[in-house]
Each structure stands twice: as structure tokens, then as C-alpha cells.
């Protein structure tokens, strides 16, 4: 028998075993207890899909043995095109509100929020090599500190923004201090646990956070004191400039706020990479023991990475709160941390351009499949697995030196360590 056919047949048998009970027999609750609904057609369809999918995959792979080399080609092409891709992306980002409708701007805000989160987490994971599975905790701290500050003291967005970052950074230091001497996966599980702790506390400290009901009525940002409202007085944006009010003005303004915040994150990261602190982070990722032998205080260096990463998470959180005008613990579940981490890894650790591209691909892609409803997350998970298998090093792998005597030459990803912390 044709080996490809045989392989596909075996795959179909496995699929029958996997899907038989789960798809073939659906449990339904009724007043008298559970009963089963057989679904032979759905089962047959799923098994057939596996059979033909495997057939196509094997045939295609048989024809193209050079798959992996092609992958590296893509990475290099992206990197080389980075020089003009970056300005093009930036220009597109700047003009987007003028060429797109309300939906496009909203999507742009969403993507940029994740770009910013990705860049923030990139400092911790990509540069310092510390695996943080609870980044969403800092996002939540930022959002809730702004919401609570505005609610309690009536402070506005621009006053609270730095405070939110500061609070998040403080939390980062507080959480980081006891656990940063843990290595690798111990650090991962502890950060995950912290993320969950913060969410559970937000959920249950009802008197302060409103519990599952969240906090509503969070103020919108103003443009130098000008509000975006339909009231039309001289202290509103439309009134001051003599424009006709449109809700798009506010959305466009929010868009530019997050664009500015994201670019700030990017600028700070790029600067940090070129000074002693950032270089120490990367050295830490490469070899912690060597760092110690060179007199670098490993704890302090890790804490700064944690704190700065957290601060950007906090900024993004404050923005999230002001943009939605409502927050609840539901927005800060583990899946958010997972998505941001996936963006960083898919982008290629440490690569700013890669992270931005990954956020566009993942969040944008997620939006494109909005109509799939409940199948959308299924597709999303499958995409994560597939992307990792096809591009384990991310879209843009390799590392650009932070300083050079002559020309900066790309360092191949094989040499760059990913950190054990």
C-alpha cells in the first residue's frame, strides 16, 4: 500500500479514537439526568478531515524537502526589509485614523495595546531572559490603580498614568524580590501564581474593587484639558476648534494616545539596550554566573528589568481602563498573559519589529475570524501550535549588537541564549 495512504489511514484511526466519544456522543442535561445524542455525521466529518489533511500534508511535504531552509529565508528577508518596513508600518500607524473608519481605529487601538504589552514583556523575557507567566498582573495593577485613583480622588488620566506605572513597578519589585533567585520554571509558576492571586483578590475585595462587577465610569483622557464630549462648550475639543462633534474624534484621540505610549515603550527599550543596564540584562540572559564574576549585582539587575517591564504593563493597564471606561477582573485572566507571551515568542525574542508584526498577525487575525464565534479560540490555539512548529525561533530571530566599532552585523540566533531565569 502507498505509505502516504497508510499513514493517513492510521491518523484517521487515531482521530476516530480521539473524537469518537467526544464528538460522536454529546452529553445533554435534562430534568431526568444526562442523556446522549449520537452525532455520527460530525464524527465522520472530523475523521475525514484528519485523513485528507494528513494526506495533503504528507504529499506536500514530500515534494518540498527544503522547508526549513525556506523558513530561515523568511526570517532574513523580514530582517533585511526591516529598514524600510519599520518606517512604512510607522507611517501607516500614524495615518490610520484618517483612512479608516471607526472599526479600523478600534482594531488599531486593540492591536497597539498588545504591541505595547508585547514590548513591555519583551524587556523581561526577551532581554533579561526571565520567564514571566503573570505579566497580566501588572496590567491589572495599572488599570485598577487608575480606576481607583480617579474614583477616590477625582484625578484625571494624565495625572494617574505615571502613578499607574509607578504602582505597577512597585508591585514588580515587591513580587520580584523574593522570587528572582528562583530559576527557570520555578520563576514561571510563581509569576503565574502571582497573576492569579492578584485576580482573585480583585474579584473578592468587593468593597474596594467592586468584585466581579468591576469599576465603571472611569474618566476619559483629555487633550490639554479639552474633553471629548457632545456638550460642545469651549472646554470640549469640538467646541474649542469649532468642529462638529463626532464620537470618532475621541476614538482617534485614544488611538494616538496608545500609539504614543507604544512608541515611548519602544524608544525606552531601544535606548536601554544601548546603555549599561540593558547590556547587563542581555548578559544576564547569556550567563548569570559570568555576570556575577564581573561584579554585576544580579538581583538588582533582574529587579530593574522586572520593574521596568511592569511599569509599561501598568501604563498599558491605565490606558485600557480609560479606553473602556469600565474594568473588571474578567479582563485580566491568565489567557491574556499567555497571549502577550505568545506575541513576544512569535515575534522573536528581543526583536521590536518582530513583536509588532506578531501582535498585528495574532490580534488582527483573531479579529478577522470574528464570525467563527466559538470556533475562533479553537483556531487560535491551533495557530499557536502550528506557528511554533513552523517557526520556533519566531518571525525575526537573531540579535543586533548594541554597539560596534565598525558595522553592526546580525548575530545568528543559534548563538544567542534564551536565559534560564
Amino acid at each position, binding site marked *: 500500500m502507498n505509505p502516504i495512504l497508510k499513514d493517513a489511514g492510521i491518523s484517521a484511526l487515531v482521530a476516530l479514537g480521539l473524537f469518537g466519544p467526544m464528538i460522536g456522543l454529546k*452529553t445533554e442535561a435534562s430534568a431526568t439526568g444526562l*442523556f446522549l445524542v449520537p452525532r455520527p455525521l460530525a464524527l465522520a466529518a472530523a475523521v475525514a478531515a484528519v485523513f485528507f489533511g494528513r494526506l495533503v500534508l504528507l504529499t506536500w511535504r514530500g515534494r518540498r524537502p527544503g522547508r526549513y531552509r525556506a523558513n530561515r529565508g523568511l526570517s532574513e528577508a523580514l530582517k533585511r526589509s526591516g529598514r524600510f518596513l519599520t518606517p512604512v508600518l510607522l507611517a501607516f500607524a500614524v495615518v490610520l485614523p484618517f483612512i479608516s473608519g471607526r472599526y479600523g481605529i478600534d482594531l488599531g487601538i486593540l492591536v497597539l495595546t498588545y504591541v505595547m504589552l508585547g514590548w513591555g514583556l519583551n524587556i523581561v523575557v526577551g532581554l533579561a531572559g526571565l520567564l514571566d507567566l503573570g505579566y497580566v498582573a501588572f496590567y491589572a495593577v495599572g488599570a485598577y490603580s487608575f480606576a481607583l485613583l480617579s474614583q477616590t480622588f477625582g484625578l484625571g488620566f494624565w495625572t494617574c498614568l505615571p502613578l499607574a506605572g509607578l504602582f505597577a513597578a512597585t508591585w514588580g519589585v515587591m513580587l520580584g524580590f523574593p522570587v528572582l533567585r528562583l530559576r527557570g520554571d520555578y520563576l514561571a509558576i510563581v509569576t503565574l501564581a502571582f497573576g492569579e*492571586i492578584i485576580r482573585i483578590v480583585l474579584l473578592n475585595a468587593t468593597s474596594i474593587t467592586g468584585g466581579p462587577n468591576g469599576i465603571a465610569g472611569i474618566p476619559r483622557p483629555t487633550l490639554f484639558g479639552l474633553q471629548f464630549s457632545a456638550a460642545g462648550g469651549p472646554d470640549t475639543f469640538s467646541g474649542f476648534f469649532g468642529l462638529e462633534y463626532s464620537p470618532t474624534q475621541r476614538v482617534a484621540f485614544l488611538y494616538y494616545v496608545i500609539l504614543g505610549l507604544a512608541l515611548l515603550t519602544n524608544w525606552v527599550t531601544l535606548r536601554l539596550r544601548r546603555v549599561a543596564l540593558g547590556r547587563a540584562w542581555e548578559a544576564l540572559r547569556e550567563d548569570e554566573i559570568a555576570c556575577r564574576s564581573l561584579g554585576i549585582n544580579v538581583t538588582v539587575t533582574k529587579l530593574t528589568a522586572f520593574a521596568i517591564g511592569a511599569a509599561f504593563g501598568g501604563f498599558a493597564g491605565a490606558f485600557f481602563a480609560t479606553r473602556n471606561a469600565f474594568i473588571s477582573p474578567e479582563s485580566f485572566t491568565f489567557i491574556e498573559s499567555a497571549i502577550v507571551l505568545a506575541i513576544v515568542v512569535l515575534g522573536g525574542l528581543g526583536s521590536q519589529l518582530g513583536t509588532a508584526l506578531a501582535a498585528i498577525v495574532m490580534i488582527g487575525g483573531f479579529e478577522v475570524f470574528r464570525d467563527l464565534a466559538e470556533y475562533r479560540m479553537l483556531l487560535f490555539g491551533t495557530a*499557536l501550535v502550528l506557528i511554533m512548529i513552523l517557526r520556533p525561533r519566531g518571525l525575526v530571530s537573531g540579535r543586533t549588537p548594541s554597539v560596534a566599532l565598525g558595522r553592526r552585523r546580525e548575530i545568528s540566533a543559534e548563538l544567542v541564549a534564551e536565559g534560564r531565569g
Partner: protein
Amino acid sequence: MAYALQQLINGVTLGMIYGLIAVGYTMVYGIIGMINFAHGDVFMIGAFLSLISLTLLSVLGLSSVPLALALTLVFAAGIAALYGWTIERVAYRPLRGSFRLAPLISAIGMSIVLQNFAQVSQGARVKPIAPLIPGGIQLMNVEGFAVQLSWMQIVIVVTTLAVLGVFTYLVSATPLGRSMRACEQDQKMAGLLGIDTDKTISLTFVIGAALAAVAGLMFLLYYGVIDFFIGFVAGVKAFTAAVLGGIGSLPGAVLGGLAIGLIETFWSAYFSVQYKDVAAFSILVIVLIFLPTGLLGRTDVEKV
């Protein structure tokens, strides 16, 4: 006192379930050094498979409860094992020997897939079953507070101990166990010495998934209700248990499971139910600060 004894019984029962899941985490971590994030969801699938099997058997008219449970155990463990095998084959094996974070993301992706697969195929609503083994023994009655040891709890503890017994025999006294331990020490060397490392790793996933399915069945029996989301919470707690016990150590996983089960139960009983997870995670953090490799973990001396 009577109240505390009751909590002890409940805590041990819950701890056994966590321990069974934690063994799967610790085995996979020990052998390939990755966090198998999808493991909690295999547990959830195991619970669903048990639910389907029990319903099917009752529809078919099987009235003997022990027989139904035994058949369900075998069925759920068998199919879940197939899940474990497939997951390793599809999502992890292509990434073996690559960069550390790629398998982690792939595992997170797999976890999302399994969760949503269960939701799509079995519906998002919670699934209740009627209690299969009602009743129990009243151990004592102090001032109107009756300490109950339900048959269900006895079944859960006994089954778990039996399964763990078989499993311990498997890893300590069989050639398979020897290959597993060899791969854990040094995969490359084990390969050079003629051990089929791919097969050994596959079997590790198969065994871990089967144990998780047993835990799924126990969970279903104990709580009587499941949904597609139980895998995440139970998975995180079982992983916490594995880390608490010292990841890579099999007795440590069971010990950690018991510790988490007891902490959670006692905290709920004496302080607040809402913060039971906070308690469990806080204990984890505190233990790790003082014992950075967990309760029974090996302390690696830093080689310089």
C-alpha cells in the same frame, strides 16, 4: 476537633486527585524539562470521557456500579492515553531540542485547543451527574457534628493508591521505568546506549495522561459536576503541587498534591472559601523562598 478531622478527610481526598495530576506534570518535566501546560486539560478531557462512558453504560442498562466504574476507568484512561500520545506527537515532538520557550507556547496553544474542543463538542454548560455511590460511615458524632467518611471518599483514596502503586512498580521495577530514569538523567547518552528515547518520551506522556484521566474520573465522582474549564484551575494547582513537592520527584508530586489539598480545605473551612487559591499559591511562594527546589527536590550544586 471533629470538624478538623472532617477537613482532614476531605483534604486528603482532594489532595489525592491533585497528586494524580501532579505526577503527570512532574514526569514530563523530569524527562524533557518542559511544562506540559496542556496536562490540566487532558485531565478535563478525562473527566468528560468518564462522564460519557458512565452515561453510555447507564443507557445500555448496566446496573452494577463497580463494573461500570471499572469499565469507565479503563475506557477513560485508554482514550486519554491516546490524547497524551497525540499531543506529544503533534505539538511537542517537532520542537524537541529546540529553544525552550517554543514548546511552552505550543503547550499553551494545545491547552486552548483542548479547552475549546471540549466546549465546542460537548457544550459550554456544566454537566451534572447523579451521585453513584451514596452514603458512608459516620466516624463519630461530637455535639451534633457528625464526621462523615463517605464511600465515595474511600473509593477515591483506595483507587488512587492502587493506581499509584501500579505506577510506582512501573517506574521502579520494569525496563520501561529504567529507560525513563535514564532519559531523565541524560537523554543523549540514553540514546547512545540503545534506548529508544522517542518511545520512552511517548510512553511518559501516555502514562501521565492515563493518570490524569483517573484523576478526572475521581473529580467527576467527588464533585458530581464538570465543565470544560476545570482543567485550567486543577492544572495550575497540580503544577503548583508538583513544584511544591520538588519538580521531577514522583513522591514529591503526591506529597505536594496532599499539601495543596489540605491547605485548600483547611483554609476554606477556617478562613474564607474565596481566598483558598491565594492560600495555596502563597504557601508555594513561601516554600520556594526557603527551599528553592521544593520539598523533595534535588538541590543542584552550581557547577562553575
